[in-house]
């Protein structure tokens, strides 16, 4: 009985604390700038889920969707900074220069730019997620579930973020199945259901029986469902769009970070930083594992997930060789963040060349 009392005492303390913070923080307003529609079920959708978490924490939020990375971004940012917002999250790479430009003019407003590298002013932070950790999980599943030993991968643009994902995925798949090959199709888009579906179909026609994706729409998992092959959801849990095909999804979970940063503004503790969080910090989340996966694979994945979170396992642990057989990471070593950030070579086992 007294355990129950303590627990309820503690939880009411927590509740009280949250309420106090919420009451203090009422004045802080956060704004979000999105590249796509909030209903894309991918990149923007997940950022909006994060925004809702900020609302739930008691803060006011505003968002503008479908803001092109053209000259328009700067106007939207300035308008938000001008209309009483204290912190502005710009959630696409192309907002990098406008974000820094507007930040210079509004030193009292905090700016948070996703996936960029420029922090030209003290009020600009950058943040990104270690999605490659999620891809280590997907690679492990793909390498185990494939029968044809050909794995398809729909990629967006040849930038380090995407190359890193392909490598991390392939390394994990090779570890459980040394015979696999990863075939890449470059869609040259982040979001174009038609193109993505075509790319997936091309890969399936080439014998791929598991399809991974680094583009945002649900078209690929739906194509996989139709063709009777496996696939993985991207950015959000896409299971409901292709219940048979989707084995699991890698979810972008921005909520905790957003709440954390908005609270920091409210408390006056916000400072400039460059954040790169993975599974351990909960920014990358693995959805429920499909029951089609054998039980031992599922428990293996659970353990891998825990080890990635604790840091016991690193996605890029040597020896790692590039396509030509040159050593990239020595035995027993792991790739450092500098190498990961600039990764522009395929590892052994990936087919084809990086488009130049």
């Amino acid at each position, binding site marked *: 009985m007294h355990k129950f009392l303590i627990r309820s005492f503690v939880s009411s303390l927590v509740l009280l604390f949250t309420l106090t913070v919420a009451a203090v923080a009422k004045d802080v307003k956060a*704004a979000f700038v999105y590249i796509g*529609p909030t209903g894309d079920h991918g990149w923007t959708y997940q950022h909006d889920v994060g925004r809702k978490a900020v609302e739930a924490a008691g803060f006011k939020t*505003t*968002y*503008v*969707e*479908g*803001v*092109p*990375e*053209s*000259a*328009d971004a*700067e*106007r*939207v940012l*300035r*308008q*938000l900074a001008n*209309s009483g917002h204290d912190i502005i999250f710009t959630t696409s*790479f*192309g907002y990098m*220069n406008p974000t820094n430009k507007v930040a210079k003019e509004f030193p009292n407003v905090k700016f948070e730019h996703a996936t960029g*590298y420029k922090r030209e002013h003290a009020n600009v932070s950058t943040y990104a997620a270690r999605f490659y950790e999620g891809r280590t999980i997907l690679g492990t599943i793909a390498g185990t579930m494939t029968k044809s030993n050909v794995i398809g991968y729909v990629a967006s*643009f*040849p*930038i*380090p973020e995407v190359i890193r994902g392909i490598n991390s995925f392939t390394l994990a798949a090779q570890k459980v199945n040394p015979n696999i090959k990863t075939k890449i199709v470059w869609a*040259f888009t982040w979001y174009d259901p038609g193109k993505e579906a075509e790319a997936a179909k091309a890969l399936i026609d080439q014998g791929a029986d598991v399809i991974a994706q680094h583009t945002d729409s649900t078209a690929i998992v739906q194509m996989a469902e139709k063709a009777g092959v496996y696939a993985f959801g991207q950015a959000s849990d896409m299971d409901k769009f292709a219940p048979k095909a989707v084995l699991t999804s890698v979810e972008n979970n921005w909520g905790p970070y957003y709440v954390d940063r908005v609270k920091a503004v409210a408390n006056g503790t916000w400072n400039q930083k460059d954040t790169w969080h993975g599974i351990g910090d909960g920014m990358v989340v693995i959805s429920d594992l499909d029951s089609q996966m054998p039980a031992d694979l599922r428990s293996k994945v659970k353990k891998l997930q825990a080890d990635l979170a604790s840091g016991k396992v690193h996605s890029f642990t040597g020896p790692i060789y590039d396509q030509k057989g040159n050593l990239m990471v020595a035995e027993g070593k792991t790739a450092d963040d500098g190498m990961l*950030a*600039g990764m*522009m070579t395929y590892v052994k086992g990936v087919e084809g060349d990086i*488009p*130049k």
Partner: protein
Amino acid sequence: MIKIVKRDQPSKAIFFFTPILAIFLTLIAGGIIFYILGFKPFEALKFFFIVPIADKYGFSELLLKATPLCLIAIGLSFCFKSNNWNIGAEGQLTFGAIVSGGVALLFYDQEGFYILPIVILAGAIGGMIYASIPAILKTYFNTNEILVSLMLVYVSKLILDYLVVGPWSNPEGFNFPETRQFSDSARLPLLFEGLRIHAGIFLALAAVVISWFVFYKTYLGFQMKVSGFSLKTAKYAGYKGKKMIILVFLISGACAGLAGVGEITGPIGQLHREVSPDYGFTAIIVAFLGRLHPVGIIFASLVVAITYLGAETAQIFMQIPKYTGQVFQGMILFFLLASDYLLFFKFKFIGTKK
């Protein structure tokens, strides 16, 4: 009883009245849509059409947005007046931006007064080269210019993608799809400190004046008008059709190319994947709303520009989905086409006889 009667001649007064009617009907329909969506219609319309331009900065943004639309629409009116359906201004804009951006990148670490004129000229030439493709294919191979110019839009965007991802990407930019920033000498000068409106607006105004002169004071303008009414008449009159087709496409391409220059050397300052939010397509609406008349196009470009700004403001302050801006653009075109019915028909009130 009301009877619908065909007019003997299209009414000139109605010709200029229907765009205003179309805008008016759009406002009413827009208000109804806002009401159905659960917003206060007048408040929403206020945030859409008044708040965005209520201050100096907003007004500068309006002009910034209207500049490329006006410039492209003026160019397109040369084509449309003479029965040439250039749908690919977006591609000509993109290609102009590519060529002028390429030149600007050559000078990325240099300063000099001569850089900007070269960059601007390069953009106009780029647009002309790109517009000459559908023009030449039309005149010498009888291809359909609508399809060719439209398809070339996608080609130009892929070329731009390729360049900014690959050979032209910023060597210090971690392989992200963007070029270096241009040097200040390659940027169009700003007109006012703290505002984004730049010298590109003078290009648009020059285009307005020149086009007015050509349309109404020159033989070429007359030829275009006759060809617009009837190609057979033009042929019968002995006009050199091919030369004119190529000329109007080149003018149109140059204008679109200059609009591209204005974007990249104005507010953007570098090349990346998205240099234009489809100005080339929206300018088609502007050209028709402005009745292919230079002065009409100025007003039309301002009206359409405000639908972009208003959509942002309405979302920030009232959480109205931003895509309603596109709905407004669509409605303007729809009501314009619908009210054009009045050009050729009139309602006649006839007393009923018993």
